[in-house]
């Protein structure tokens, strides 16, 4: 067992997987000599050389497309896209090709590729560099979308993603790279598609993932001092979605708030709210609430950005209102 950052957990896992399977290689902008914009590939070029650590031109559609080709022939590319915003330039390759090839080739050839990419606002990077568009990928049959929130999950889920035979969008978060946590030695690959109850509680369920799982924990601490016991479900996998864990929790607590780091309308919270009403309608004592970003392109200005992002405070308020609405 070692305590390490989310960044270190990703880096060590990448290295382990490269040592384990010589078909695993990494590719992306600035990942070799520069060791990655967020230093996830630190030391890898030195250790594995340029055949397995490939710096690419600034051509996201190009290198994602090339990774698909490599994956079809049995390699296991782990592509880094500098931020999820730039994955939009590769949308056709991801959605029309990575996600479709297995089906359209009649199951003869899969695409065992991982796209690692961070999302996340709050870093003062402006509207085009601060988005959380994992929703686009979570919508697509043929893709898997993972979103770990702790170093241990980052490690076990990246391991699983690399060994999986399908294309996986692996969502990291800029605000999580420096967070620390324990990572057990010899961690097994995670089971893809399992949510987790990360904090048991009795009064209300908060559903979150990635950075918002931490915001939820902060909110739950505050709520505890008010005598509200919040249970947290960390989704961890957006596709496949573990509906069962969400529904079971809400059946126990009788009310729910979804916390998401992107826009509300048509968002992941909407999917969770629908899941809850389908699976736990008779157990609900109050309407499901959602806490999300203001529906604006994220401002570059620090105070404006903070005003637009969901916070522990706004979550606490929503949870209090929800619990009050139950009339308990």
């Amino acid at each position: 067992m070692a305590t390490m950052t989310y960044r270190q957990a990703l880096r060590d896992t990448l290295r382990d997987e490269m040592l384990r399977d010589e078909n695993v290689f990494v590719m992306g902008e600035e990942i070799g000599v520069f060791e990655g914009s967020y230093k996830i590939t630190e030391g890898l070029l030195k250790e594995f050389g340029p055949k397995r650590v490939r710096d690419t031109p600034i051509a996201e559609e190009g290198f994602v497309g090339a990774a698909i080709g490599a994956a079809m022939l049995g390699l296991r590319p782990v592509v880094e896209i500098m931020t999820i915003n730039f994955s939009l330039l590769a949308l056709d390759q991801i959605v029309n090709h990575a996600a479709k090839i297995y089906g359209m080739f009649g199951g003869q050839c899969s695409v065992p590729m991982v796209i690692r990419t961070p999302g996340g606002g709050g870093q003062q990077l402006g509207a085009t560099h601060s988005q959380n568009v994992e929703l686009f990928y979570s919508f697509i049959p043929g893709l898997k979308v993972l979103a770990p929130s702790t170093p241990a999950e980052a490690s076990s889920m990246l391991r699983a993603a690399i060994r999986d035979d399908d294309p996986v969008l692996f969502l990291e978060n800029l605000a999580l790279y420096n967070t620390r946590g324990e990572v057990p030695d010899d961690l097994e690959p995670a089971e893809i598609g399992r949510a987790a109850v990360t904090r048991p509680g009795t009064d209300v369920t908060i559903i979150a993932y990635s950075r918002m799982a931490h915001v939820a924990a902060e909110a739950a601490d505050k709520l505890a001092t008010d005598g509200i016991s919040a249970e947290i479900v960390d989704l961890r996998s957006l596709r496949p979605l573990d509906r069962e864990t969400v529904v079971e929790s809400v059946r126990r607590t009788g009310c729910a708030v979804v916390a998401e780091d992107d826009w509300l309308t048509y968002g992941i919270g909407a999917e969770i709210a629908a899941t809850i009403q389908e699976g736990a309608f008779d157990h609900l004592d109050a309407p499901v609430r959602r806490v999300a970003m203001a529906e604006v392109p994220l401002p570059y200005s620090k105070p404006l950005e903070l005003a637009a992002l969901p916070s522990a405070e706004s979550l606490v308020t929503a949870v209090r209102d929800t619990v009050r609405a139950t009339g308990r």
Partner: protein
Amino acid sequence: MIVDAARGAPLGTDAQSPPPELVQLLTPEGERVEHPEYDVNLTPEEIKGLYRDLVIVRRIDTEAVALTRQGELGIWASLLGQEAAQIGSAHALRTGDMAFPSYREHGVAWCRGVDPLDLLGLFRGVNHAGWDPKAHNFHLYTIVIGSHALHATGYAMGIQRDGAENAAIVYFGDGATSQGDVNEAFVWSAAQNAPIVFFCQNNQWAISEPLERQSRIPLYRRAEGFGFPGVRVDGNDIFAVLAVTRKALDNARSGQGPTLIEAFTYRMGAHTTTDDPTRYRLQSELESWKLKDPIERLKAYLVKNEMADREFFDAIDAEAKQVGSDLRRRCLELPDPEPTAIWENVYATEHSLLAEERDQFTSYLASFEDVSR
């Protein structure tokens, strides 16, 4: 050199040393030389004006870097070393021409009459591009690499449709030439014979990626395959940049279609204030480019030709210093926007969802004021 076996086959042409086809009118030593195709005819006053712009934009840039280090701006992409490429090309523009910058074109902004305070405000996060793109014919900064090459192409087609005698110029870097958008802009503007100049500042680096990783041939030669001329110009030679850009713009305006200009220059500073170039490039490379400094070169020319004296240079330095300190003061005085400003520029027209959200948010904020009273 940092050795990297995955770069592909060895380059036919060494991208690091300027090959003979480089257009140059002023040597690094400030010696005026002839070129069979290009020339400039400038009065001493005009040349001194160019010198003034070079010095002032370098000073603005230095001030912005310092302000960023002191936490007053969020980030800044320095133009250090690229002054001649920017000032030279911008001086070739006519008022009606439209310039599409990426994010380093502070020198072009200066020549288009944009108050540098507006650039600083952008990176301080108090406005989103405080300048009016139509008033200055200088578009907004674009940070997603290469996208604006297509915007410029569309704009140029608009000029064509209007039958106007203007052109569009789009600025991008060597790294951007790898993007699909830039190549699509080449394809379409060539097929349409659009009045556009593609101005690529090849500053040798795309963050930590050297040019060899993006291209096997000199960038300007790519143009031929797309069906329009490509020219490589010494980007640190303001005369040559001015002459080459003027000709390209004239060609565009007179119905001869696009040109790709590769301004061969060097990013003397970091990629942005968050970058540390010593991690990936050699100090000796920087030292060799310092000998080709665009400002020193023009200064040497002015001195050699007795066009300017000590007094002139001192006056310019004093003026630049003044511009810098005024800018710093005005920057520090910029107020933070009100939180409700987030709702202001989402749609050009009213949107019901947004109005609802804005009202909720405003009353949420007001609830805090009530408590504090």
